[in-house]
């Protein structure tokens, strides 16, 4: 499928400050979609115009989280050019100010969209006239997913307090960071070092971004400075979902400390959401708990989390 240049080049810069938020996490089944739906819902409640994008191609279910039937038009229609503009695949939701771009559809290969298609999607998504575009990235650490994560103004990493989820979370962060560094590598030899680091069994013994930066430093101090600046600007925000006790809540602080000390990354802890029966009871009724059980603990925690994420925006990726 050929794309014309005009479709691939960035659309004119938005006049208003528009933000892209994304929620990733590497592992499936950790409540990412509900988190995305409820944060988007809350943002809309706070008066933001929000578009929620279900980029969990192949496993899309955000419409169900929001209590909607499968939308008539989805991202697949846009990717396959059955519609001409991204506006045509926007679906209204029960929440005023919140619209959805569903990822559901018949695209067997949708999860593997090509780079240019991705760029086209991203550019058109960026051009939608709203305040916040929130992307649910779905599971996995494919390049597509990591790219969306890196292109976001607010990069949210969801985990649950379980070893498997946290292991995947670290893998997600490390992979994203290496991709970022590879793109920023000023010379071929530095790029080769970054690529070596991508292989966990690399002969150079580079195990963490800290090791990598030390190696680059030894070889090329100027390149190390460039890469450090990228590292400093990459600030994933952890959300710990499904916490059950104080120790679980504390895991978020530990993740931030571990990222700082052992990955050399300035992560932050955006908030946590308790495991709450009100959430799955609402899911069974195919309603969002924010609407169905607004006084529940989880709903209150989502409100706090969202307010915190909004306030963090000036600290975020603003240079």
């Amino acid at each position, binding site marked *: 499928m050929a794309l014309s240049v005009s479709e691939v080049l960035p659309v004119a810069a938005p006049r208003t400050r528009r933000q892209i938020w994304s929620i990733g996490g590497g592992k499936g089944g950790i409540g990412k979609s509900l988190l995305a739906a409820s944060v988007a819902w809350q943002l809309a409640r706070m008066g933001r115009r929000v578009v929620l994008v279900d980029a969990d191609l192949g496993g899309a279910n955000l419409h169900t989280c929001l209590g909607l039937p499968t939308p008539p038009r989805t991202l697949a229609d846009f990717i396959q050019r059955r519609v001409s503009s991204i506006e045509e695949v926007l679906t209204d939701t029960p929440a005023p100010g919140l619209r959805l771009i569903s990822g559901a559809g018949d695209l067997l290969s949708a999860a593997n969209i090509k780079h240019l298609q991705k760029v086209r999607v991203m550019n058109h998504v960026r051009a939608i006239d709203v305040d916040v575009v929130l992307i649910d990235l779905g599971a996995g650490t494919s390049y597509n997913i990591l790219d969306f994560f890196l292109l976001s103004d607010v990069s949210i990493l969801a985990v649950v*307090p*379980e*070893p498997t989820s*946290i*292991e995947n979370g*670290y893998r997600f962060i490390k992979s994203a960071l290496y991709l970022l560094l590879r793109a920023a590598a000023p010379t071929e030899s530095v790029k080769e070092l970054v690529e070596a680091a991508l292989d966990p069994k690399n002969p150079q013994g580079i195990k963490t971004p*800290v090791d990598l*930066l030390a190696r680059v430093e030894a070889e090329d101090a100027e390149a190390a400075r460039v890469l*450090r*600046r990228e*590292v*400093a600007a990459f600030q994933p925000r952890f959300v710990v979902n499904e916490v059950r006790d104080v120790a679980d809540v*504390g*895991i978020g*602080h*530990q*993740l931030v*400390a*571990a990222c*700082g*000390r*052992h*990955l*050399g*990354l*300035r992560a932050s*802890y955006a*908030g946590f959401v308790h495991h709450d029966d009100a959430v799955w009871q609402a899911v069974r009724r195919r309603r969002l708990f924010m609407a169905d059980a607004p006084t529940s603990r989880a709903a209150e925690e989502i409100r*706090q989390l969202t*307010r*915190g994420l909004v*306030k963090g925006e000036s600290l975020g990726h603003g240079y």
Partner: protein
Amino acid sequence: MATDSQAVNLTVLTGGRPSRDDLYAALGLEPRASRDEVERAYRFCLELYGEGSVATYSLLEPTEAEQLRLRVREAYEVLTDEDRRRAYDESRGFLPPDSPVLPFRPPSAAAPVGELPEVLTGADLRKMREARGMSLRHIATVTKIGLRYLEYVEEDRFAFLPPPVYLRGFLQEYARLVGIDPRRAADAYMKRLPARG
């Protein structure tokens, strides 16, 4: 330094800058940390590097974690022993924790830490904090109180504050760091809380 020659890699690259490898850094602290902070940081690090720690087991080799535990314990033992800590601070050129210099002493332009008013608003607290050149993030890091809660305190957003029993603790920790009387500061702030229904 004998102790530091065996230092494990605890480099913190916050903001891309390599940081210190001293005993304070091993606990994630700044020099001049209070005894209280050392205790809290030690407990935090024990959990962080404990066997079966969810946050680090997939990040660190068991031998690395063990080294880090030893380092953390060493830091704790030195920094909680007054004589050893003093000797260590001197050898590294750090100021002792009770030295009457920064950051608890307000700059000359700021109001003296004299009498606290009967009633304190969040804005009052913020002024006192800022007069000491202390960031809210620093308080959050040291006390492990969520940054957001500290912001709510300074913004007087009572509805979002935790129940009084926790709030009192938060306020006291805040006051202690800012260098005002913890109990009186907490009382003066909490006077303004609306009755909870």
